[in-house]
């Protein structure tokens, strides 16, 4: 019987099956960060358990870290304590840690692929919902809670119930100025933030195949915003080329063996998914979120919707609340909305290609007077690469702050936050109330759109901007 890629990976990781119970899956890679791990390590200490496979466990610091100079002391004492706890735990349990002074430090979902740790066919977990990012390589990757972090640390396994499968097929070609970010925002807008709950999604189709690995990571990253357990894209020559030569990639004879295995992963012709969703890439415009949920999106050419547009009374009330929180009136052009801040970064759009795209728009331009703009590279290697290419100079000349790597203003756990009422065009993944700072207003966009908006001082259609 033909199998989907997901089924192949799942079956290859079943350690044990018992009727009436979840399957026990083996985990090939466990990524750890400072926020969701301290209680898990504490649990190990309380029960006298060890980390079963420190060699398959890798930790970094990303959520809390300041993005100002690494030579400065960390002023937030509670953040500092959490980072110290991770250092102590990694030392005690023998786990590799890339701390804030490491040349490999960065957002956990940026460094996994960068180090060659993320490989096709692996089962990858992390106490972070955006673990779905790694699915871009054809890995089964999903976020877990702290109790499950402890479970994986202790056993290298996780009991899991079989999810359903959804194929999201993106046919055709993307237009100029339209990116992976716009595809995924369009998908979430179409199926809703719970549209893929209970499913593992496989993204297929011409537009997906045409994307770079960075673009594929952007797509898989936001699978969780559609409610999906995980999102996958079949590996191909682009995938192999990305991995080859990376620090922890297989080498020599092992490389050939690995690639031969990876080539068996893509879904077989005729494999059945439980659900199919189709989109036409040529119809996707640059997207922007207007509300407080990632499903509240419109094309940049659109108008802010009215609560009356929603059939469900609960959705109508949510739209009313969102309009009020966002300080927007129904029916206005989203392009008329003025901005205070532009943030480029995050595990969604903080990779080198994202910075190149934004710098391409910003070259020789300057951000609007009075607007705060910051670029936070996803990792130290991304930062160094960008500096080698001179991108930092373009950003700085344009009036952007050029920062150290971390999650930063995506969730504002470090000092990079919005003030109440401030409005931000952000390349991150969540526009929840208060996400970037209490009372802050977030508009999710692509790096190109963020860059163009920083120059204009309001949201603009980057496709027309290019022509100006």
């Amino acid at each position, binding site marked *: 019987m033909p199998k989907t890629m997901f089924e192949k990976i799942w079956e290859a990781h079943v350690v044990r099956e018992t009727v009436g119970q*979840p399957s*026990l899956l*083996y985990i*090939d*890679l466990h990524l750890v960060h400072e*926020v*969701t791990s301290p*209680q898990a390590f*504490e649990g190990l200490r309380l*029960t006298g*358990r060890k980390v079963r*496979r420190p*060699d398959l*466990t*890798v930790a970094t610091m990303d959520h*809390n870290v300041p993005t100002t100079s690494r030579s400065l002391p960390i002023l937030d004492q509670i*953040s500092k*304590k*959490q980072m110290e706890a991770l250092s102590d735990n990694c030392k005690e349990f023998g786990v590799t840690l890339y701390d804030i002074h490491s040349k490999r430090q960065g957002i956990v979902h940026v460094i996994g692929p960068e180090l060659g*740790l993320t*490989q096709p066919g692996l089962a990858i977990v992390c*106490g*972070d*919902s955006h673990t779905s990012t790694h699915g871009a390589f054809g890995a089964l990757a999903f*976020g*877990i*809670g*702290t*109790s499950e972090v402890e*479970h994986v640390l*202790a*056993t*290298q*396994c996780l*009991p899991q*119930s079989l999810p359903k499968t959804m194929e999201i097929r993106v046919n055709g070609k993307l237009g100029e100025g339209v990116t992976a970010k716009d595809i995924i925002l369009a998908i979430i807008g179409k199926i809703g*933030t*719970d549209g893929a*709950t209970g499913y593992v999604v496989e993204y297929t189709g011409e537009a997906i195949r045409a994307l770079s690995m960075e673009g594929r990571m952007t797509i898989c990253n936001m699978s*969780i915003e559609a*409610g999906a*357990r995980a999102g996958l894209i079949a590996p191909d020559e682009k995938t192999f080329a990305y991995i080859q030569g990376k*620090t*922890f990639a*297989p080498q*020599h004879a*092992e490389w050939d*063996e*690995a690639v031969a295995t990876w080539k068996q992963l893509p879904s077989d012709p005729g494999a059945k998914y439980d659900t199919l969703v189709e989109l036409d890439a040529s119809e996707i415009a640059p997207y922007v979120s207007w509300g407080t*949920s990632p499903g509240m999106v419109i094309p940049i050419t659109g108008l802010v919707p009215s609560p009356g547009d929603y059939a469900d009374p609960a959705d109508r*009330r*949510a739209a009313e*609340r969102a309009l009020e929180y966002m300080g927007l009136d129904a029916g206005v052009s989203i392009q008329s909305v003025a901005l205070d801040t532009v943030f480029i970064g995050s595990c969604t759009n903080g990779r080198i290609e994202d910075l190149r795209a934004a710098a391409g728009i910003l070259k020789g331009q300057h951000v609007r007077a009075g607007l705060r703009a910051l670029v936070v590279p996803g990792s130290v290697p991304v930062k160094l690469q960008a500096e080698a290419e001179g991108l930092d100079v373009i950003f700085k000349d344009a009036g952007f702050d050029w920062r150290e790597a971390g999650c930063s203003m995506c*969730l504002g*756990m470090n000092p990079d936050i919005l003030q109440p009422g401030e409005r931000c065009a952000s390349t991150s993944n*969540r526009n*929840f*109330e208060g*996400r970037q700072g*209490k009372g802050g207003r977030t508009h999710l966009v692509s790096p190109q759109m963020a860059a163009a908006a920083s120059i204009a001082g309001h949201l603009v259609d980057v496709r027309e901007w290019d022509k100006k």
Partner: protein
Amino acid sequence: MESFTKLTGLAAPLDRVNADTDQIIPKQFLKRIERTGFGQFLFFDWRYEADGTTPNPEFELNQSQYAGAVVLITGKNFGCGSSREHAPWALADYGFKAILAPSYADIFYNNCFKNGILPVVLPEETITMLLERGKTAGYTMTVDLENQTVSDNQGFSQPFEVDAFRRHCLLNGLDDIGLTLQHEPDITAYESKRPLWKRGAVAA
């Protein structure tokens, strides 16, 4: 793990859809390294005025009739967003031991069971009715996991579905790490068959 068998007590309505984990427990409280003490921060940005100390009179749960509530009735896709287990820690510490909603985000749903909270899935129209009934002072509900029923003090009673294994673990408060460790020989056997190139963080 904490067990859950049967619960009777005050129910409080939170008539919102897609209440995300950033609302349940905002990020500034994720820096603690303990599992305890999160209840004081539950729904913080909704619960308090901008000064962070004055209770927001508009927020449903601040009404005195809901003090001591143990059942939370709410809209679809509850707990969407981040994987933070601080969300169920905060709910449980505040006093909520059962949640009734039409649907939940996957990771949050999982996390509840690990913390002695029973998330019950009920049809949307039932939730709409319960949200309405919840406005009555002294509205009391019983959530019975053993018999898989939800009922109230106004004559409502309805069965609910829950995965048999999750039910078993929650009823008995089982330590699921302990359960997995019982299969140590299977894990070792699996590991012996893993290809050498799956080295993780060890360079070849």
